[in-house]
């Protein structure tokens, strides 16, 4: 596949290697993050007029899901402020590594938890309370603060960015969808990594040892073995550390990582969690059914308990169950014969096939989120201007935009854009399913039918 190495450009390379531009962005992000926490705690309780709600769930979310994830993969993780204070404390430094490191526990993350199940659970916990979280500034502030302090706490106990890698509810789905992005960080030559002494990209190189001083991969990834974007946080530490100039940032075709999908169940279920959540949110938040909104909002009531049970049932039983049925049908000899594949024996059955084929849902899920977010963001974007001038809802008018009247923007383009996103996602996923089916010598039709059915439901919910 064709790739263009961006780091061949000296300006790009030096901008990425230099710690100062990244630090400048980090500081702005951290200041915004802390301000969002404060605004949530001391600002107006009216969500649509509070910086914490408007800038986190409208502005940031729009940038994340419509731009950052589809085009830059884990680009957001490269500038995310959440791990910063913990990482600075862990390293005892803000910029370059020191010879003398602070004596924190520096434990390895438990082997049994080296997967994204905790991230799945964390996302689902937030998802079940999302109606309250998205609309109540205090709750948003508490969640933001909890994430910050959890990241700090974990940095004191465990090595590297344990929070980002194993617990962050946002990082899990960014990692999943980053596989579709046209950007990657990879090594240039495998043999160079094999013969490299000390593997500074993974273990770090302090100032006294190397001119290329830097930290070992904060994401606990050996760049020499990188084949997918999922766990590479694009922090650029390996680019700084590699003594052989063997790290490249490449432009590549979309969804290149999905050519050889993962067979991990935690990642497979992440695909179902994201697909199902987008559909549920489209129905509950953007649909016309008041009873559903009440059930989702009034946490703790019997209606909410039923809502939570249905939410989890759709994600853990209905969607994977129907997908398993599709895979079962895909293995039927009659369907394979239909496609002239009766000669080959279907390879891989059971959980491995389930996990591998679920990767074909990744583009569809991403486009479901794009379509959902378009509606949510374009409808509420006017609040960004208001909140910019009056972030705490205290009657300020800093930039003269506090009195901008609410009005949805681009409403005539919304539905066609959603259709394009959903149909585009369907084509993308159907193509992925067909590739996987060709590899496994089974029929792609049932999985394509599954994707089609899910798309029709989403179209019905959004249009």
């Amino acid at each position, binding site marked *: 596949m064709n790739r263009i190495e961006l780091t061949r450009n000296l300006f790009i390379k030096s901008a990425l290697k230099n710690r100062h531009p990244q630090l400048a962005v980090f500081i702005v992000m951290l200041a915004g993050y802390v301000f969002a926490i404060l605004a949530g705690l001391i600002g107006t309780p009216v969500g649509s007029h509070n910086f914490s709600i408007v800038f986190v769930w409208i502005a940031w979310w729009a940038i994340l899901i419509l731009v950052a994830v589809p085009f830059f993969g884990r680009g957001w993780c490269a500038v995310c402020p959440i791990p910063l204070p913990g990482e600075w404390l862990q390293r005892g430094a803000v910029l370059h590594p020191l010879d003398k490191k602070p004596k924190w526990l520096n434990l390895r993350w438990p082997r049994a938890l080296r997967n994204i199940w905790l991230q799945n659970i964390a996302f689902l916990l937030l998802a079940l309370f999302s109606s309250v979280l998205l609309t109540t500034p205090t709750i948003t502030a508490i969640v933001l603060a909890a994430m910050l302090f959890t990241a700090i706490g974990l940095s004191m106990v465990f090595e590297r960015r344990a929070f980002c890698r194993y617990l962050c509810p946002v990082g899990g789905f960014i990692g999943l969808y980053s596989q579709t992005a046209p950007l990657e960080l990879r090594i240039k030559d495998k043999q160079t990594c094999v013969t490299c002494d000390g593997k500074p990209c993974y273990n770090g190189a302090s100032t006294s040892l190397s001119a290329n001083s830097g930290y070992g991969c904060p994401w606990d990834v050996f760049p020499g073995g990188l084949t997918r974007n999922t766990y590479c946080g694009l922090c650029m530490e390996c680019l700084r550390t590699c003594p052989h100039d063997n790290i490249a940032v490449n432009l590549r075709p979309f969804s290149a990582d999905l050519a050889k999908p993962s067979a991990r169940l935690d990642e497979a279920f992440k695909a179902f969690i994201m697909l199902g959540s987008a559909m549920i949110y489209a129905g509950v938040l953007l649909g016309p059914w008041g009873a559903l909104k009440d059930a989702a909002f009034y946490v703790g009531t019997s209606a909410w308990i039923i809502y939570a049970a249905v939410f989890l049932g759709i994600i853990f039983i209905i969607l994977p169950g129907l997908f398993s049925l599709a895979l079962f049908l895909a293995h039927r000899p009659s369907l394979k014969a239909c496609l002239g594949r009766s000669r080959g024996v279907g390879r891989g059955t059971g959980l491995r096939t389930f996990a591998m084929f679920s990767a074909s849902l990744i583009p569809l899920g991403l486009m479901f989120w794009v379509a959902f977010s378009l509606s949510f963001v374009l409808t509420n974007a006017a609040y960004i201007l208001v909140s910019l001038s009056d972030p705490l809802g205290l009657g300020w008018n800093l930039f003269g935009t506090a009195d901008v009247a609410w009005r949805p923007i681009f409403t005539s383009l919304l*539905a066609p854009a959603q259709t394009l996103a959903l149909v585009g996602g369907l084509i993308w996923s159907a193509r992925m399913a067909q590739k996987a089916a060709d590899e496994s010598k089974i029929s792609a039709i049932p999985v394509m039918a599954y994707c089609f059915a899910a798309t029709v439901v989403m179209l019905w919910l959004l249009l």
Partner: protein
Amino acid sequence: MIRFISLVVLFAAGLAVAFAPLPAPSIAPQARTLRIDARQFAYSPSELKVNLGDTVTVQLVSTDVVHGLYVDGYDVSVEADPGQTATLTFVADRSGSFRFRCNVTCGAMHPFMIGKITVEKNDLLFRSVGLATLAVIGVFPLSSLLVERKDRALAK
């Protein structure tokens, strides 16, 4: 070649599904008055259906706090004080399905206080499902074409 022709035919069919004009409705337009009760954070009824060309009068009755009603695509709105009825009249001259939503901050779930009005038929939904069907069918010739191209490139 057959695969290429199939793709062209499917593309043309897609254009027809997306843009072909539909027959005009035969039902004569009439004046309709619809009463909508608004409460935190729902309308009742929340789904309305009218015919193309109808003159629609919405009587918005707020049962708790101040609520509004803004119709996407028509860009018309009305606000009702608690216990009061406010009236909004517009001509439903665009077919399709449109969200209507509260335009007065009315509480936590205000951004999601939404209803739906369908004028004639939800054409876009039917067209979109048609496009999705053609898209799935089109993946077969598209994949074969891509594989052929890849094989040719490898052979060279």
